[in-house]
């Protein structure tokens, strides 16, 4: 993610790093998927609603084998299949074109309803940003997922408490976020979104919850893992300079 965005000279490293542990848990521990057959009908679906965090998804897809890791350096460049925001028609393994926030949960409901109609056992995971929860459509979707009793659908909020221009609580406060989802008819669980055991346990809890959808509110740190990027709003939508990238990679190694 650091190398990708630095090479691109633009992008959203902060919200990619905050979601890294969640995405890693899904792709490498939980989801049934087949990189050799991205259209496998019974695959579990991962929908990145916060499309600006595309680098974390691209990294997971490349690491899984959907495309060669060398392609990651083409992020945001002309002719690349790795667009600035995800594009399902260009990138193997990407389920949804995203970028305009608030649409992913609705899309996930459609995917989850199709599973029910077709009697398929796949699960649908939707990763939302916390800033994204300010979009009204997210709450339209929250209402309807509960109405349709979609227990095959799991939403995960990457609650890093920051959005483009500052702290979410100062811009448009979301707290108490768990109570809001509960009021909309969801099963909720709060976890540390950087603790792998907690992530796995929460995903297991979602799988065993019947009759309602589950939202995992994952408390995370924007820019996680790089001291000067953590909780630094400058890295919401700005790539590290080559020097910053070098420092970041040293810290991460």
């Amino acid at each position, binding site marked *: 993610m650091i190398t990708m965005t630095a090479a691109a000279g633009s992008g959203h490293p902060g919200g990619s790093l905050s979601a890294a542990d969640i995405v890693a848990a899904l792709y490498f521990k939980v989801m049934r998927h087949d990189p050799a057959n991205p259209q496998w009908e019974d695959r579990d679906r991962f929908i990145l609603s916060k499309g600006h965090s595309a680098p974390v998804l691209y990294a997971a897809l490349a690491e899984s084998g959907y495309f060669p890791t060398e392609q990651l350096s083409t992020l945001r460049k002309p002719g690349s299949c790795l667009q600035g925001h995800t594009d399902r028609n260009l990138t193997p393994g990407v389920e949804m074109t995203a970028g305009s926030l608030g649409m992913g949960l*609705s899309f996930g409901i459609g995917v989850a309803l199709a599973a029910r109609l*077709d009697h398929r056992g796949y699960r649908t995971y939707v990763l939302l940003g916390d800033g994204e929860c300010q979009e009204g459509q997210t709450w339209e979707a929250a209402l309807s997922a509960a109405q349709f009793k979609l227990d095959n659908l799991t939403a995960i909020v990457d609650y890093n408490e920051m959005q483009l221009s500052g702290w979410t609580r100062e811009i448009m406060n979301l707290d108490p976020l768990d109570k809001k989802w509960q009021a909309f008819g969801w099963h909720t669980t709060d976890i540390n979104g950087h603790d792998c055991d907690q992530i796995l346990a929460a995903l297991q809890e979602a799988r065993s919850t019947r009759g309602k959808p589950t939202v995992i509110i994952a408390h995370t740190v924007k820019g996680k893992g790089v001291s000067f990027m953590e909780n630094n709003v400058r890295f919401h939508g700005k790539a590290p300079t080559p020097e910053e990238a070098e420092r970041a990679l040293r810290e991460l190694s």
Partner: protein
Amino acid sequence: MTAEASTREAYGNALVELGKRDPNIVVLDADLSPSTMTHFFAEAFPDRFFDCGLEEQNMIGIAAGLAASGKTVFASSFAIFASCRCFDQLRMCLSQMELNVKVVASHSGITVGEDGGSHHAVEDLALYCSLPGFTVVVPSDAVETAEAVKVAASTPGPFYVRLSRPRTPLVHSEGYHFTLGKAVVLRPGKDVTIMAIGVMVAKALEAAKVLAKEKIDCQVASMPTVKPLDEGFVLQAASDTGSIVVAEEHLAHGGLGSRVAQVVAREKPVPMCFVNLGDRYALSGKPEELLQTCGLTADSIAAAVRVVVQRK
């Protein structure tokens, strides 16, 4: 008196027929199924019908997710909510993802009537035609609606089908065959071509009758596929008749008139006139009263023809 029938009722019945033949068809609505007539399908196939409540944006996203999972999805609401309310969703979820969703909207234009300007979808064609990959169809009557809905179901990709609230005059007979992307010449003529859509088609035919008495020989064409436009026909009409009048229940900009003018200006400039709502909204009133006060009449079309043939 010309026979009339309801385009939305024709849609509702066509959906049930499609549902019987194809188990892959899923229908969504936004709390308006008794009005859009998707309730026929809901009653016949309750498992494949989802009422999304008053959540048009969410409905389009759900439609996209179902379509991405292999379903042929019909999503319905009133035209005003199925266009302006969810335009960003139409753009990213249907146009950019190129998904197989058919948005079929009733209550388009000012013939919604008494509900007033808030409910008059008069910019929907401009919005939908601006979206790459969308096919935009405005059936001219109930017969064509039933046919167009079947063609939409069997043609991959996003569609917008624009229907009306009131019963409208029948211009086609049973047995009519709809061909996507083709103009339909309803009356041959050599002096001018009147191109019309929706409720304006019957009015164009009326105008042609009046003008025939004045020795103005009008070709009248229904243009049910607004996008992609039948450019071949437009150019042929420009060549053969030397002038064109376009009539539509839509604002002046971005609808059929704009699309025809773009083709004519590019390849075969001829005098044109436009009968539409101009650049203003209408108010409450009965559909026919509104058409009259807004100048969407056979008389207005005839007046436009007289002007345009003088300029040849």
